[in-house]
């Protein structure tokens, strides 16, 4: 059996960054396990630019970002298991975890002190968004369509309807339009778009693709291949307005209805899950409720920017190296983050107050002229506007945290008084 100090599960941006960082910090035996034949996770299929402005200070395409990260990794020595799918993790004791994986060469059983779990997220499917009707061919998630087009060079269809206006859906709308397909509409159930404004501009407006806000796809119509979708307007409670139903002819339906962290293997271990992020509850080293198991990247929180996923990979690696060298992550007392007002979530959920921490959060609904307050440390940050599609990232220094004597810190977002 192979024995490691750290096994990184998932070879996307955060996983590669975690392996690199751990090696740089002097962790000896590191392995990176990935289910695909190529590293990078979803980056190699994201052929558009907009990646790496923070991390590499350059505007790169997804594959270029991967290449740079992989080149960095090649200079360090760690084992890479490609085409290897982890199907079970066992927590033996504080210093011993087992990772079971299936590969071309049979079942692999690896032993390790620490794990950085960076298996990314999965896409919500048509079965999860309440669309009834038949299930003919021609229905894909946005990521499936992207893989078909930009890895395999296969065009999924010609007349396209997209459900969901998150960034992935918008990027695919443009991709289809560029490739000569007719993108009939992007349909969004919320009264505001799910993606970044720049993507509305450069992906929809550039190609005159209609964005139908407060609309929902009710039904799929078609026998062998999808032929039409039934669409309606919805009211504030997302209920269908009866006389607003109409149909759009299409041969392809793309589902871009959100992403969910992939943490089934961790759930099986019995770690604490935060219902707000649908992923692990973590401390400021991104360690879960099981000592020595860390989570990073989109498996922890669905990020807007790959740079944040990389950053989390590095924080988790910092944690793993501390665990290896100091026999654990220390804190005199973990302080809980409490939420108040227009906040959907903040991670990490526990902080020590003894080191710097980067917090990532999202709001529930769009709002202008707001302030984020953390009363216990008398911190106040103003925002011109906040949107659910734009992640809030902020760094808290250990100096400002050191004076806190309470067991919790309360984050609240509220309207600024003029």
């Amino acid at each position: 059996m192979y024995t490691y100090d750290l096994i990184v599960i998932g070879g996307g941006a955060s996983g590669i960054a975690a392996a690199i960082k751990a090696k740089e910090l002097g962790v000896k035996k590191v392995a990176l396990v990935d289910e695909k034949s190529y590293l990078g996770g979803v980056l190699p299929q994201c052929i558009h630019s907009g990646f790496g402005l923070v991390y590499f200070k350059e505007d790169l395409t997804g594959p270029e970002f991967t290449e740079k990260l992989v080149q960095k990794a090649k200079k360090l020595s760690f084992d890479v298991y490609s085409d290897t799918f982890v199907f079970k993790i066992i927590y033996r004791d504080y210093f011993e975890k087992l990772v079971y994986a299936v590969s071309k060469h049979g079942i692999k059983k690896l032993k390790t002190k620490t794990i950085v779990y960076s298996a990314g997220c999965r896409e919500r499917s048509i079965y999860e968004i309440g669309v009834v009707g038949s299930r003919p061919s021609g229905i894909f998630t946005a990521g499936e369509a992207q893989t078909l087009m930009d890895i395999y060079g296969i065009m999924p269809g010609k007349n396209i309807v997209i459900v969901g206006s998150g960034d992935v859906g918008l990027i695919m709308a443009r991709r289809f339009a560029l490739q000569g397909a007719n993108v009939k509409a992007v349909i969004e159930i919320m009264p505001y778009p799910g993606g970044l404004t720049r993507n509305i501009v450069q992906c929809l407006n550039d190609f005159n693709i209609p964005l139908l806000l407060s609309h929902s796809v009710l039904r799929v119509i078609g026998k062998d291949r999808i032929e039409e979708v039934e669409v309606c307007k919805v009211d504030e409670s997302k209920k269908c307005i009866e006389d607003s139903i109409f149909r759009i002819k299409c041969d392809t339906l793309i589902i871009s209805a959100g992403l969910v962290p992939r943490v089934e293997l961790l759930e099986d271990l019995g770690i604490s899950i935060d219902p707000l992020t649908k992923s692990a509850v973590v401390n400021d080293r991104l360690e879960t409720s099981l000592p020595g198991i860390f989570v990073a990247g989109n498996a922890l929180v669905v990020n807007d920017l790959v740079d944040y996923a990389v950053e989390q990979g590095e924080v988790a690696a910092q944690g793993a190296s501390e665990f290896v060298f100091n026999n654990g992550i220390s804190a005199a007392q973990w302080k809980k983050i409490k939420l108040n007002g227009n906040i959907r979530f903040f991670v990490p959920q526990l902080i020590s107050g003894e080191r710097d921490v980067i917090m990532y959060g999202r709001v529930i609904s769009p709002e202008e002229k707001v302030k984020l307050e953390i009363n216990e440390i008398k911190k106040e940050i103003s925002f011109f506007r906040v949107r659910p599609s734009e992640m809030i990232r902020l760094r808290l220094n250990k100096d400002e945290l050191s004076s806190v004597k309470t067991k919790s810190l309360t984050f609240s977002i509220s309207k600024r008084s003029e």
Partner: protein
Amino acid sequence: MSNKRKVVKLTCIVCPIGCEIEVIAENGNIISISGNKCPNGEKYAKEEVFHPKRLAFTVLRCKNGTMPTVAVKTSKPVSKFLIPSIMKYLSNVEVSAPLNVGDVVVQNILDSGADVVVTRSVDLLECNS
């Protein structure tokens, strides 16, 4: 109409912050640009009003490679209105592995001044027959 005043509201697409920029132009000359948080935004707004440009991205069919396609982009932004023709042209281009990031596959595409360069390396597929 000798004094043609034009007010254009833009969302900057240079970075994910997405500043709301207002450009005021008169007789084809820019009078003021406001709302941008950085100089890149000013440059973008200037171009966007009269000569909108974008990078173009696609994949090309690739022979003998470990992947069936190779990802490419234009080496610099090209006129937004030229992009459909560029896409059409590139849909008929086929290349062969191996290719590395930065390799030029088409020079000065459609006289745009931009080259088409590889963004995703493809190794040669080894045949183990």
